[in-house]
């Protein structure tokens, strides 16, 4: 029952709220009504914007997944079923707050209106890829959107977020940092490093653990979930730990908002566990049928976050099936149009979109002699391979 867990004041002592680490904060009840003390009472426009953003991400994921299967790129990662996690949080953060995501928080970019054609350019490593084809698809970087360059190495962003937040606080800046990792990734040493720095320096930082119950093939028990919750890790550092229904976007919003307020009041970091479910494969390189039953997906623990918000809006009388269908069509078309546009800049398979020199740039600010020499070699090789 959502209202079972009362929302404490943001200034309350961490010790006074350990129960929050063991329950499950919800706003939408089983009938999709917004109830309880965590209800953020969002206005209708915001609710519908949230709904549309989640739908857009779902459409994008589906389309780009197919693009990978069609051979237009090498790799893709969906976040199906987890849309509320990143989108709900981003709606609760300030636009200027800095995000240190893992690879499954593309929702931040959608919520901050990052141009989706740019995302596809990156995914295709094409001529207009802002990262010059250097990064694996979906490893975005968008400083202007408060989105830190994604790493392929798990959990390295945790201490980085703490450091960014320490810097912000030391400069009297009101901006805070937020970071995300998967439940499997909590085992890395850097999870501990992030929390230690956060706790010791009272850094204005939100540490999110997205518990989608799976790493790649291994379930959350291999990260410790059989003994306790991930939110409970917070207790060991003396900071608040909140366990949140990650498929309930209003709960995600409310918990993030609470943690952000606390951080801005200079009361330090919070750990949020977002309990959710990875509804599809780990990535396009993965086939989950080898390690879990198809039925599991049908049961979809906690339900589809889009469906839940949609029903809430319909019940509230601000939305209906027809508009939902129109919106679904609209976002699909938006993605399709962006994809078309991006394809004009090339797809991965179609030739070499970046001049070879770009490969040698940005290794350092200035190119040292050995990279200059190697770059000449690369240019010579290209001329031999593709004499024009």
């Amino acid at each position: 029952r959502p209202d079972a867990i009362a929302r404490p004041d943001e200034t309350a002592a961490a010790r006074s709220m350990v129960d929050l680490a063991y329950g499950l904060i919800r706003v939408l009840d089983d009938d999709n009504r917004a109830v309880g003390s965590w209800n953020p009472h969002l206005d209708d426009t915001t609710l519908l914007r949230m709904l549309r953003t989640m739908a857009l991400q779902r459409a994008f994921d589906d389309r780009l997944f197919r693009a990978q299967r069609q051979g237009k790129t090498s790799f893709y990662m969906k976040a199906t079923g987890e849309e509320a996690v990143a989108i709900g949080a981003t709606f609760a953060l300030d636009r200027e707050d800095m995000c240190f995501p893992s690879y499954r928080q593309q929702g931040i970019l959608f919520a901050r209106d990052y141009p989706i054609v740019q995302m596809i350019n990156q995914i295709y490593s094409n001529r207009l890829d802002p990262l010059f084809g250097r990064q694996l698809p979906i490893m975005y970087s968008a400083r202007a959107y408060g989105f830190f360059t994604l790493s392929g190495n798990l959990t390295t962003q945790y201490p980085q977020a703490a450091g960014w937040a320490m810097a912000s606080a030391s400069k009297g800046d009101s901006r805070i940092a937020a970071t995300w990792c998967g439940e499997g990734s909590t085992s890395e040493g850097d999870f501990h490093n992030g929390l230690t720095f956060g706790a010791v320096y009272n850094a204005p930082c939100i540490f999110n653990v997205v518990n989608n119950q799976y790493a790649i093939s291994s379930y959350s028990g291999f990260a410790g979930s059989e003994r306790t919750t991930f939110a409970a890790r917070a207790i060991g550092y003396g900071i608040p730990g909140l366990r949140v229904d990650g498929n309930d976007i209003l709960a995600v919003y409310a918990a993030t908002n609470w943690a952000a307020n606390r951080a801005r009041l200079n009361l330090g970091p919070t750990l949020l566990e977002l309990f959710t479910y990875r509804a599809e494969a780990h990535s396009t390189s993965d086939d989950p049928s080898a390690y879990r039953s198809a039925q599991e997906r049908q049961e979809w623990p906690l339900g589809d976050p889009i469906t839940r918000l949609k029903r809430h809006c319909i019940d509230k009388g601000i939305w209906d099936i027809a508009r939902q269908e129109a919106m679904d069509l609209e976002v699909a078309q938006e993605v399709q149009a962006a994809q078309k546009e991006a394809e004009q800049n090339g797809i991965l398979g179609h030739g070499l979109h970046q001049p070879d020199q770009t490969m040698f740039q940005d290794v350092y600010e200035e190119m040292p002699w050995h990279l200059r020499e190697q770059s000449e070699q690369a240019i010579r090789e290209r001329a031999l391979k593709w004499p024009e």
Partner: protein
Amino acid sequence: MIQALNSALDVMMARDDRVVVLGEDVGYFGGVFRVTAGLQTKFGKQRCFDTPITECGIIGAAIGMAAYGLRPVPEIQFADYIYPGLDQIISEAARIRYRSAADFICPLTIRVPFGGGIFGGQTHSQSPESLFTHVTGIKTVIPSNPHDAKGLLIAAMEDNDPVIFMEPKRCYNGPFDGYYDRPAKSWADHPDADVDEGYFRVPLGQARIVREGGDLTILAYGTMVHVAHKVIDEHGIDGELIDLRSLVPLDIATIEASVRKTGRCLIVHEATRTSGFGAELSALVQERCFYHLEAPIERVTGFDTPYPHSLEWSYFPGPIRIGEALDRLMRE
């Protein structure tokens, strides 16, 4: 090669109940590259098991298991993810025998898929072998074909010192000759893919002359053995191709004899150039065969950049780069 590696693990787990296999996704699922497939079903969860995602923890726990008397074979999912575990490798695994005067030993075999050419981008393509060769107390072993993969892995598991066993993942399914734009070959009728089902060893520290020749010596390992082989053939050069197989300990005698014979030496690796293992090879050959050298020893390597996603074939030391060096060397 996957099957051969799997067979090596299978054979050793059956022979020696101290052998345990652990790592991310290696248990129930059988490994993201399927190298450990079937082992958990056959030997149980105490012998082959999934771990938390912490490379440092995996190596650290494996060291403790080795101290107990087991012979752990941890897998690091990609070489690119071994860095969090380097402290346990460098400060612990490599030092335990020495610092304890052999009171404790550390017979670990750390399996590490490495190398690029699979559009894996910066963090699924790296070749960090050189780092390990600088760390005394560990051995670094790299097979290039299924037969050696099995024989060397068994030898590594039986070795009483920690071994970094690096698997060239571009050759998991077939020998890769550098022509990414031609149909992929499988191991099907490759002579080195006919692997005995039972127990056999390929001793550590012994290189293999893949092809004898008098004109020049090529030193390579892993995937680059096949690429270099192809280029020699294409250029019609009577090159002597040596597959190092072990970087540490290195089979210096075979290398020396060859370069003294040919007077020319080309070194090929996929890793970035600066302080790559090619540097050590070049230095050794120069020190030991100086007065036999007719031309500068050349290194053909990956560039000193991260492994770029879309330009990975520009990064890769392929037939053109190797061919140019070969021609240059033979001209001198």
